[in-house]
């Protein structure tokens, strides 16, 4: 039995303690926003927060969450449903294409901005390099992080001539 908090809700779960957090939250709690991509912490699609720190949930056993707080993509909006600044910037910059990696991207970006509210390009590159976007929306992710940080104004590109 592992005791942990998921998005503010205290839970006890009877699973093999070596089962990765990813499968516990997806299969036992039905929260499917966190995605399976590689299984070996290479792509970041499974990123969640463990006591606020971003971790790759595909490679972190649930025993590591004993007594701790797990936050997933489903848990970062306000209780009244207002999206976080990062989520809002993801919409204003029209970041997602297929969207599969974006929960992980948003969780990483949220952690980055908490510790580094005004990140430089180099800091964004270093922090976000663990999250693969196969649709290649890196430019928009970079811009959205700056918009969420208040460094840049929201706005779309692509005006036709």
């Amino acid at each position, binding site marked *: 039995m592992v005791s942990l908090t998921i998005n503010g809700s205290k839970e006890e779960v009877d699973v093999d303690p070596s089962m*990765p957090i990813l499968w516990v939250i997806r299969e036992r709690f039905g929260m499917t926003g966190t995605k399976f991509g590689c299984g070996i912490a290479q792509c970041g699609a499974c990123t969640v927060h463990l006591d606020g720190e971003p971790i790759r949930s595909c490679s972190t056993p649930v025993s590591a969450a004993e007594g701790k707080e797990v936050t997933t993509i489903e848990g970062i909006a306000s209780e009244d449903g207002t999206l976080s600044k990062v989520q809002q910037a993801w919409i204003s910059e*029209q970041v997602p294409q*297929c969207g599969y990696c974006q*929960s992980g991207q948003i969780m990483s970006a949220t952690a980055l901005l908490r510790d580094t509210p005004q990140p430089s390009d180099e800091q964004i*590159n270093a922090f976000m390099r663990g999250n693969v*976007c196969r649709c290649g929306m*890196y*430019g928009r992710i970079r811009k959205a992080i700056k918009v969420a940080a208040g460094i840049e104004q929201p706005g779309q590109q*692509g005006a*036709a001539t």
Partner: protein
Amino acid sequence: MNETTSTKPSSSKTSRSRAAKWTRRGFIGAGALAGGALIVGVAVRSGNPVGKLKPIVAGGDDEALINSWVKIDADNLVTAIVPHCEMGQGANSTIAQMLADEMDVNWENVRVMDAPADGNYVSQHAARLFVGPGTLPDRPNQVGFMEPTYDGLFTQLGKLAGAYITGGSSSVRSTGQNGMRIAGAAAREMLVAAAAKEWGVPASEIKTQNARLTHAGSGRSEPYSAFAEAAAQQELPRAPKIKQVSEYRLMGTPAPRKDIPSKVDGSAIFGIDGGPDSDDLRYAAVKAAPVVGAQIASMDASTAKGMGGVLQILNMGDFVAVVADSYWQAQQALGTIKTAYTETENDTVSTAKMFAGFSAALDEAGDTGGNSKAEYGDPIDALGGAAIAVEAEYKVPFLAHATMEPMNCTAWVRGGKCDIWTSTQVPLMARDGAAEGAGVNADDVTMHPVFLGGGFGRRLTPEYSNQAARLAKAAGYPIKMIWSREEDTAQDFYRPADISRFKGGLDENGKAVCWNNVHCTEDEPAEAPLIEFYDIPNVSVRNADVEMPVRLGAWRSVAHSQHGFFVESFVDELAHAAGQDPFEFRSAHLANSPRHLAVLEGAAKMAGWGDALPEGHGRGIALVRSFNSIVAEVAQVDMTGNKPRVVKMFCCVDAGFAMNPDGLAAQMESGIIYGLTAAMYDEITLKDGKVEQSNFHDYQMMRMDDAPEISVQIINGAPDNIGGAGEPGLPPAAAAVANAIFAANGTRIRELPIAKHFA
């Protein structure tokens, strides 16, 4: 698709009175749904560019069909029911935008819903209202796809919804242009007609805007919903008038995508997330024979049997599966199973041997042999008389798609029926695969629409829905089967490897006089290796038949992915041999191709072509026409480190008309990164018949710290001749970078991936 619609014909009389009409563009039908909603549908025949897939989905017909539907609810919300899969390209949102513009509906009032790949939806809920008795086409040969019966017609319409392919960069230019716009225009005309009748005023005096009907003379104004039911009773327009470019209000604007909000809060349901609300759901991990054609000869599952959560261990002949309470438990147990495989003729396949075969085939084809793709002038004679002769050979590897969402499928087989949740670009094909696996009729398979976690051509095959259905049938309860990343990498349908050889000649003024190319892959699309837009008078383009005992598939931009690199690298070599600037050289050969020239000049101008660069940097340019769009890209590469670093990419695109410029720009950005990833890092190799790569550590993805800054500029060069968006950004990328490396330090890259040369 979580929406269900209950339908109730208002009366058999009104059904009869409602004519379904053929226009010169297709078939329009309309009906009223319960609660006063109007539904209008359009079926159109139109050319489909996805060549290789046509026989599979269109039964040998050389045309495909478009179904587009629109629904207006009592609350004045307009729902576009779109027959394409949303795999990231945003096209569903864009074609809804086209519909909304023709209907004069504001974007806020528009919803998008996937067309269900399920005949039952149509027959039970919608299509029965499309066509009343006595309205079947009187010349059935015009509509060979429809059976000459009432129910048969509905069934066929339903199948068409499932037949839809999402590929070939085709959604906007076929479904949008020919289906959605007609449906929107027809719906608008019927609403106007209904209001004109009720208000007793001429239809021509009624204005439509923001989903409202207004008659200035009498001061009347009502939302569309007020006339939705009455509109269903109106005469169907025979040829609805669609807008001129000057009348566009939503088309050509960056309307926000409708699918994005669900993709930032975790609520979007992808294939891997879908499934029945059932406590009986269990999980399967699978491993197929690693060599094409091999079967499981024997397996030792003694360790797996005792592992926690393991329910079933199955030898399925061509793959091994473990079913467990959790996917992770299934995967752990599968990893302990020792498997022996049957011998096959593919056990000795290797990439080295295949490339040797390519070289031998090209040697044999020589300057004139092989299958002719284009021949004009006399390139042999012209080369003999050329002032400068240039020769080069280029090589590209096999590639995997590596969608972020690995292949997966959830299946439930019970009572002669099968339910399927899976990410697929071709719902009908996935359905047929599942039907075969479940041993049920295709009509008894229900496909549940889900988002795709990437497509790129990978999800055009039915093998994974077949696997899941077989497992669910064997298990007797619902099964969620997920491929590991390793399985996904090893069991892909790969972009073909290729070698391409060129001989070109220049006259004393540096003008290209001849072009002779022979390569190996089949060309799909056929235009991929062709260069008729360049003013070169003597041309031969051929391919040689080669053996590739590998699963091959369509990979984003298909043969353009290889030929973009080959052709634009060789054009660059010709330019340098002529002692000319590569941009000037291309410009000089585009005298008869003004749209190509404008795009080339656009990219050069964006990049500041000719301006000084930092020490060790170089610029390269490339121009490719694909899927009816023209794209030029300039790469700026930094060669001061121990490996090339792409710093900036400048992209100019003419896709005819950008229905959603931000969406088109996003597709260019995406295609560029996909192309750069392949150009820089990746190759799939085979040894002893097996793929050697397995996961993202040995099949690398471009990441944030290597991703260049990308600028996109759009030219609307042909508003009536729209091109694709999902693929055309990719083909120029590799050549632009290779050409930039040459400009920086004189190293000519003739083989991809580039990383190989800097290991």
